[in-house]
């Protein structure tokens, strides 16, 4: 019922639906059908009532390129059951009107500390009401790596957080430690020889039953898993020399390295790309080049972009992996999207920027089958923002983990008072007169002025939306459908 007006409006407006988006519509419709037709679940219907969450009217960014405007996401029992335009909303579903807002997959921090209030066995020691967890959610992070454990920021829960207990298989291969390098090479070679011998034996076995299975003795298990493609080794490397050597090692033995740091990766991006590497970078890290060397070096704002354009998958992390409430702000986990924004500033395509903190991060951690994008069947880890995720002005309004709203900006004390949502008690009762403030000084005030129409703070470049007052010029990055602001907020 609620969807109908939206659909009509959709037809009348210029459409920018991407192809990828329409691909999801079919499975969405299919997926919802069998569950609805199931009459045998009478007993569980009570349970189901609380399990269905619907985000209605938002602009869905799937994280894979698809963008669906004024669309609906249906979440049942923690999984994305359907999304698109023809979603049947059950009567008893919890419906959140997110019109004018954007829905993204929850962000993934591939390194963190202090978010879970403890380390070690999270099931028995997590503090799920930890302030840092709430703050990380406010930054849009719904999954983080703590130690070597991938866990969800499932606020209020002590069970079901852990997604994967071995995030990284680290390997040290540094130019500064030739003996260590030799050992790694020997291990890999031993494993490669073993695999070759094993395959030969498998072939021989068919004709010769007497054939002897090659001995596993002395074969490094880790190397074996790497060469079999079960894990991807993670290296810490920044210098050009190290990166080159890792790239060559990877190509020699045929595995895809993950490289943490990768500061001078832009100088050897083609080699890394050929090696199928994934780079975990911090776009704002700064280090001058070693002046004793003639070749290029040091950090570059274009690092992420250069790597990406050479086929290296890019994951972004901030310089500090914790939540720091002191010192110079902006380099901790609270600013993960901003960090990705800086990669875009250096030339990384916007979609790659979004992917660098969602699906690419999930891939590196081996959890992309569950999280990292908005796809039917995946975990409902979603964030709802009031604007472009990668813009510094944007706030996360809701964070959802496993289909449960675990963060609501208006319900927490941290940012509730800044540009409160119109339905909030904190919202100003009266509309402010635009003439009272110089538009150049107070662009942030926009959403307040707009409150009756829409909740986006990204108030558009042109004034067609509300139509009443000429709006000050805004950040061009924010350009969006001008009619967005005309979407009615109430339901």
């Amino acid at each position, binding site marked *: 019922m609620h969807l109908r007006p939206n659909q009509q409006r959709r037809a009348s407006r210029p459409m920018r639906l991407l192809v990828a988006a329409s691909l999801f519509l079919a499975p969405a419709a299919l997926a919802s059908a069998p569950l609805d037709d199931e009459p045998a679940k009478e007993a569980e219907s009570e349970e189901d009532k609380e399990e269905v969450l619907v985000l209605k009217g938002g602009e869905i960014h799937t994280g894979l390129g698809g963008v669906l405007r004024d669309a609906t996401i249906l979440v049942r029992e923690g999984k994305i059951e359907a999304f698109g335009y023809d979603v049947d909303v059950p009567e008893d579903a919890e419906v959140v009107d997110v019109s004018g807002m954007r829905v993204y997959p929850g962000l993934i921090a591939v390194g963190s500390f202090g978010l879970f*209030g*403890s380390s070690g*066995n999270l*099931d*028995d*020691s*997590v*503090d*799920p*009401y*930890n*302030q840092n967890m709430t703050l990380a959610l406010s930054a849009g992070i719904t999954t983080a790596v703590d130690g070597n454990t991938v866990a969800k920021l499932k606020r*209020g*829960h*002590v*069970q079901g957080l852990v997604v994967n207990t071995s995030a990284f298989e680290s390997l040290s291969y540094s130019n500064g430690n030739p003996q260590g390098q030799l050992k790694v090479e020997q291990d890999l070679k031993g494993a490669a020889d073993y695999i070759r011998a094993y395959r030969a034996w498998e072939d021989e076995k068919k004709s010769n039953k007497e054939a002897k299975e090659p001995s596993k003795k002395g074969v490094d298990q880790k190397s074996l898993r790497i060469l079999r493609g079960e894990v991807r080794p993670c290296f810490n490397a920044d210098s050009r020399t190290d990166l080159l050597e890792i790239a060559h090692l990877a190509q020699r033995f045929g595995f895809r390295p993950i490289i943490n740091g990768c500061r001078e990766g832009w100088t050897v991006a083609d080699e890394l790309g050929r090696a199928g590497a994934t780079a975990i970078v911090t776009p704002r890290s700064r280090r001058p080049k070693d002046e004793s060397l003639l070749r290029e070096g040091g950090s570059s704002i274009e690092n992420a972009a250069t790597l990406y354009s050479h086929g290296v998958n890019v994951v972004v992390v901030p310089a500090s992996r914790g939540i720091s409430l002191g010192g110079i702000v902006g380099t901790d986990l609270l600013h993960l999207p901003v960090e990705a924004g800086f990669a875009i500033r250096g030339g990384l395509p916007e979609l790659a920027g979004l992917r660098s903190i969602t699906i690419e991060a999930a891939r590196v951690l081996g959890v992309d089958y569950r999280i990292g994008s908005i796809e039917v069947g995946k975990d409902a880890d979603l964030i709802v923002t009031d604007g472009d995720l990668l813009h510094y002005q944007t706030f996360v309004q809701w964070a959802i983990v496993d289909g449960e709203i675990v963060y609501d900006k208006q319900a927490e*004390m941290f940012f509730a008072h800044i540009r409160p949502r119109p339905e909030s008690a904190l919202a100003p009762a009266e509309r402010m007169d635009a003439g009272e403030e110089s538009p150049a000084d107070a662009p942030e005030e926009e959403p307040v002025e707009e409150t009756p129409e829409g909740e986006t703070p990204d108030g558009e470049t042109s004034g067609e939306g509300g139509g009443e007052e000429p709006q000050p010029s805004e950040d061009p990055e924010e350009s969006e459908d001008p009619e967005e602001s005309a979407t009615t907020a109430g339901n």
Partner: protein
Amino acid sequence: MILSPLLLLGPMAAAPAAPVQGDLFVIKAPRVELGDGEVMEHAVILVEDGEIVTMGQDLPIERGIPVVELDEGQVVMPGLVNPYSRYGMSGGGYNDSRPQVMASAELYPSAAYKAFLENGVTTVGQYPAGQGIPGQAVAVRPRGDSSEEMIVEDGVYLKVVMGNNSSAKRNLRDGFKKADDHLEKVAKEREKFDKAQAKAKSDKKKSSSKSKATFTPPQADPRVQPFFDLREGKLRALVSIRNAASYAHLVDAIGDEEFEWHLRIPLTRDIDVFHVADEVGERGCFVLMEPLITLVPGTLRQRNLPAEFERAGAKLVLLPRSDSKAGFESFLEDVGVMIGAGLDRKAAVRAITHNPAAFMGLGDRLGTLSEGKRANLLIFSGDPFQPDTKLDAVMLDGKFVSGDMDQ
């Protein structure tokens, strides 16, 4: 000094001490806090052998019964019940699971217990020291020449300490697991015994010699019995939690196990338990906390957690802010501050009288003033929660044991 105008003696003209010593007497009180939150005005309380026999408004008093008539401003309240104290006990405990330990074994009738009576506490729950599962608490009356005389009821609750760590959760889980293991062992033994019996029967069918054996189940580890008691409802648990997270871990550790449990939430430092106030309220369990305003951790935002939990539906029990004489002395004033800060006054009265008694399973004997309850009562010069009010007298089991009327 105060007594002479107060006592309206009967025609028998007994000596001033007579009502106290006699088996039967009447208290005429202009205002009585009943303990359940209600107030009775112009109450007449008939006490016999330390128990309230009859109680009502303006009841006619039979001739010859000694009467203690209170002054117009005076207020009667049930004796305070402090269910969670180690005052008067000493020593530390262990960090593991010792649910069979009884705090009553530590009980010693020292002079320290006077501090309870002087401040209106007529029933005390004393718990064993230690982390983990340190043992079972005992309800005592803070007066007596021997520990036997002091004990009101033993094993009133099992103390459990829950933290955000695996050992605390293991203590609880393992306790029930051991109980299961024991049941399994008993079942196996019985099966074995039955088989042996059947075999013996068939063997000895011809020979008529009949030896009747009875099955004796194997002895349970003493640490197991309390967990059986928990399951069977003979024992309740008081779980001390550190923060909201340890509540979540507690619920996780309990799982599907069903037993009666209540919460001890220390407010002596800033704590984030408001996250789970609604959940706890829904459970409706007893919550033991201090009458203190706390801050949201890391901020300067004040919260009246006792009031929040009470409103959410939890049965509030208030404890002195410190387990010391100073804490006992300022207790009622502290409670008054909480009332000023939004705690319902009736709830506050319940939280220091009826609720703590009911928590220890003594609600049918004390904690309120009504027929059949112990005559444990306090006489105040005015509203008990006003700072200038004096505690005029303390009556324990029908006898004045402290205050100006104690003569």
